[in-house]
Each structure stands twice: as structure tokens, then as C-alpha cells.
């Protein structure tokens, strides 16, 4: 496996809902082990694009490959190799932490022994040991998000897609969450993350900024700041988003 090979590559990816073009011909590549920040204002089309990459939504036109498979014809193969954490918390509230881990581990075909080992390791790392038998619905939001991330990476996916993972989470937990992301990236997992926090964008290896369904800027944070002559990613975002014609 080559360090610089593209894990995600997308050509002219477009999604239309009736006359509304949510994603308008975007093209980009994400390399193995990168933390790729997928930025954009509300309604810019980030979630729609991400759903196409995860095999939840068919593109209207254009093509893409994730982990070596075609997003239209081989989406079930992609699903074995990716993890996904949606914007809405979507683990089972009425199951315990351990039961959720067992459920998804089982679905990804991990052996019961392996699930247990990883569960113990994960719970230890998250500081969740004592909550293993707590129902997920009773956990505070920050904990839920960390758990959702743990479940999304349980089967050691090649790529993990995170849709606003830190929305509504306190700064301390946000910090811890990014440590988890770094750990996963260091282990070779490619991270594809959307966020509205521009300080988080500074942590990414590369970022893209979407405006009205198109990618307006793509590069390392340092590169982009130089090119657009701004001090921070935050300023860059404001500069580009000002031109947006649509909002949520």
C-alpha cells in the first residue's frame, strides 16, 4: 500500500434533487492516512456528497471510487471498508454501550472474541469501563459522540467518514475527540471529516471549502492561507462563504 495512493477519488460528482443541484460537479482526491477537512456552510452540499461516497445515495452523474471500489456499482464492497458517523447520533439508545459494540462488530463479521478484545480496549481508551452496561440513551452527548466514533472505527476501516462529529460538544470533549481522530489517522485510517469549527480545520492535513455545491478551494491549510492572503482558515472561510447564494 502506497502512502500517496488515493483512497477516495471523485470526478465531476453531481447530485440533483429535482431542479435543485445539491452537489455540482465536484472533483477531488484524498490520500491514504490523510485527515481531510470537508468544509462548507450549512446547505453547501457536504452531507449529500458524503452520503454518495458512503453508498447511501446514488450520484445523478459523475463517478467516484472509495477504497478501490466504484461508488455506484460496488457500494456494498465499500461498506465493508469504511466507517460512518452521521450528523445525527444513530446508535441504539435502548441498547447498552457493550451491546451496541457487539451488534456492529457482529455485523462487520468480527469474531466474538475479537469484538470483546476490541471492546475492552476501546472502553479503556475512552474511559468508559464502568459505563459498559449503561444504556446509550442515558449517556451525555459528548460521550455518545466518542462512542459513535469508536463504533465507526471498530472494524478498522480504511476510511472513516465523520459528519460534524463535534457539533454541540463542549471544548474539552472536542479536544479529546480530536485526539481520537489523530490516533486513528496515525494507525493508517483515512479521516474524511466535516466541521463548522475552523480551529478544527487547522488540524487537518488538507481541507476543501464547498460553496453552493462546488469546491471553491482545496489544499493544505498553510497553502490556502498563502494563496488567498489570509491569516487563518476562519478568515478564508468567511471570504469564500460570503459569495454563497444559498443557505439552509
Amino acid at each position, binding site marked *: 500500500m502506497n502512502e500517496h495512493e488515493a483512497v477516495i477519488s471523485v470526478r465531476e460528482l453531481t447530485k440533483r434533487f429535482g431542479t435543485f443541484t445539491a452537489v455540482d460537479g465536484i472533483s477531488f482526491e484524498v490520500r491514504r492516512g490523510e485527515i481531510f477537512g470537508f468544509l462548507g456552510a450549512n446547505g453547501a452540499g457536504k452531507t449529500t456528497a458524503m452520503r454518495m461516497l458512503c453508498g447511501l445515495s446514488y450520484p445523478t452523474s459523475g463517478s467516484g471510487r472509495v477504497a478501490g471500489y466504484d461508488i455506484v456499482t460496488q457500494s*456494498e464492497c465499500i461498506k465493508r471498508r469504511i466507517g460512518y458517523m452521521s450528523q445525527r447520533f444513530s446508535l441504539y439508545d435502548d441498547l447498552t454501550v457493550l451491546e451496541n459494540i457487539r451488534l456492529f462488530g*457482529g455485523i462487520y463479521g468480527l469474531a466474538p472474541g475479537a469484538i470483546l478484545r476490541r471492546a475492552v480496549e476501546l472502553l479503556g481508551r475512552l474511559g468508559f469501563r464502568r459505563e459498559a452496561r449503561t444504556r446509550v440513551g442515558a449517556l451525555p452527548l459528548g460521550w455518545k459522540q466518542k462512542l459513535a466514533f469508536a463504533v465507526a472505527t471498530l472494524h478498522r476501516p480504511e476510511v472513516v467518514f465523520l459528519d460534524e462529529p463535534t457539533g454541540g460538544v463542549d471544548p474539552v470533549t472536542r479536544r479529546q475527540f480530536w485526539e481520537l481522530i489523530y490516533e486513528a489517522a496515525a494507525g493508517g485510517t483515512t479521516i474524511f471529516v466535516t466541521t463548522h469549527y475552523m480551529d478544527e480545520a487547522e488540524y487537518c492535513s488538507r481541507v476543501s471549502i464547498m460553496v453552493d455545491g462546488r469546491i471553491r478551494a482545496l489544499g493544505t491549510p498553510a497553502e490556502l492561507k498563502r494563496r488567498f492572503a489570509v491569516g487563518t482558515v476562519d478568515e478564508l472561510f468567511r471570504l469564500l462563504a460570503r459569495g454563497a447564494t444559498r443557505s439552509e
Partner: protein
Amino acid sequence: MRTLLVLLDKEFRQFFRNPFLPRVVIIFPLMIMFVIPWVTTLDVRHIDVAVVDHDRSQTSRRIVCKIAASDYFTLRGVEADYGAALRRLEAGDVDAILEIPDRFERSLAAADPEWVSIAANGVNALKGSLGGQYLAAVVGETLAELACERGETLPNAAPIVQNRYNPTLEYRYYMIPALMIMLLVMLCGFLPALNLVGEKEAGTIEQMNVTPVNRWTFALAKLIPFWLIGLVVLGLVMIVARVVYGLAPEGSPGAIFLAAALFVFTMSGLGFGVANGSSNMQQTMFVMFFFVMIFILMSGLITPVESMPRWAQGLTRVLPPRYFVDAMRALYLKGATIADLWVEYVALTLFALLFNGWAALSYRKQR
């Protein structure tokens, strides 16, 4: 296979952890079985009758006595003229009027006898028509008795009707298998639909859709629990029918459970498919109500299919409960066997495959 077990484990845990569902599944059928057989009876009793007796003979008095003594009638009075009786009918005081003409008794011996007239209030169609028929029967019976006492036989003696399989025409015995079917329609149709659409509303279905889980496995894991629940409920209500109403199935319980298993699978497939097509609870509920209404009213559960118009009878052939209703009544009351009912079993099997195939195919992980 292991994925299926993992998913089933999840479904059962969620079911038993739900504060509401396990209770509904037990209490709802018990309530229905304890209450409804007593109230849904088409045996009409206590029909209010007024008699207009112009004859005042021994025969007419005998008829009046018989009406007064019968449990089916409440004699509201003997009126002097028809107008007075009609006013009471219009006031809603009485349901039916029996008018015995003048010289009724004497005319009976003649070649061309006078005949009684009966007027019934048709607003309550069932009570009116049955009331009229019962009155006519009482008059006929009285005349037969009188003739018998005189040592004669009436030339047109009424034929003897014997009701096979339900000798006393106990309406409850007719209703109980129907209630079992209604329960299965409700529970096994609604519960899977609400379960799946609940996952849609909670957003958890999305997490499932992004995993490599096979859609047939997922569908099966959603359907199997309700299959079992349906059969457990059926067992429960069969026990109630036996203990409370003394109604044991004439046919083999195995054949009953086989038919029920096929039917329940059909219903839960329908519920699953409807939930796939709807985006929220309200939509699911309305569409399911539509199906359930049609199933209950058109499948011969309450009114016989044979008395429906031709086109409607044709329509009932595509309704799965129609076959189940026929099979259940035959199994429960007549002691039919699977061999007798092979058409019904084949039809139910086809419906089960069709509905579940549709359910699994309409479930899409990618749109």
C-alpha cells in the same frame, strides 16, 4: 447466518426492553378475547313488539302469549288499532308490529286463509329484518302446535333445519376464530411497520445502511420476531377460547399454527413493505389502517363473502386474509385437515412469498 443471529439478538433485546410493547402484546389480545365475544353477537334479542289483535280468538291469544314468553321479544302492549301501534313504531317505542286480522282463526280452516301482517322498523336493518322473521316463525309455530293438539298435521309443515358444526348456532363460536384473525392482522401488521419506521425516525437505519449487512438478512431479522409474537398470541387466545368459552379446535392445532404462521408472515411482510415506503409514523399508520380496514371488512370475517356483489367477491381473491378466514373457520369448527384446505395453504404460501419478497426488495440501502 451469524449476522442474522446478531440482528435477532438486537431485535429481541429491544422488544423486551420496550416499556410498552411486551405489555400490549399480552394485554391487547386478552382484553379482546374477554370482552368482544360477549358483545359482538348477531343474535337479536329483546325486540320490542306491539300486537294489534283484531281477532281476539283462542289462536290469537295463544300467539300473544308466546311472544310475551319468548326471550327474543319484549311485548310492549296490545293495541286496539293499527294506527296507535304505528305511532309507537314511529316514536321508536317498538321495533315491530304484528297485526292479526279479524276472523283469523276461523279463516284458517278455509281454503284461502287470512294472514297476519308484520311491520318492522328498518332503521336498524338487522333488528328489523330478524324481528320480522322471528315473528313470522312464532306465528307458524303456534299454528303448528294448535294443529298438533287437534291431532292434525299442517300440510306445509316447516322443514327441520339442523345446523351442522355449530349446532346451537352459537354466534360466539363463529366470532372467536374471527377475533383471532383480527388480532393477528392488527399485531403482526402494525408492529413491524412501526418498528421499522421507528428506526427511520431515530436515524438508526442509516447506521445500518452504511454497514455491509445484506438486505434479506436485515428484513428477515425484522420479521422473525413478529412471526413468533403472532404465534405466541395465537396460542394465548386459543387457551382463552378453550378455558373461558369452552371452544376447542376440531382440527389439529398443528394445522392451525401452520396456517397462522403463513398468514402472520404475510402480514408482517406487508407491514415492513409499507414502512419502507413511508417516511414517518403518520404515513405508516394511515396506509396500514387502509389495508387493515379492507382486510377486516372484505375477507368474510364479519359478513360472508358470498353475499357481496360479484366484483367484490372477485376482489377478495387477492386478499390474503380471505384464505386464512376460510381455513381458520374450517379448522376450528369443522375439523378440516390440511389436505381439505390445500388451496388455502397454497394461496397463503404464495402471499407470504410475494409480500415478503416485496418487503425485502423495497428496502433499499442506497437511494
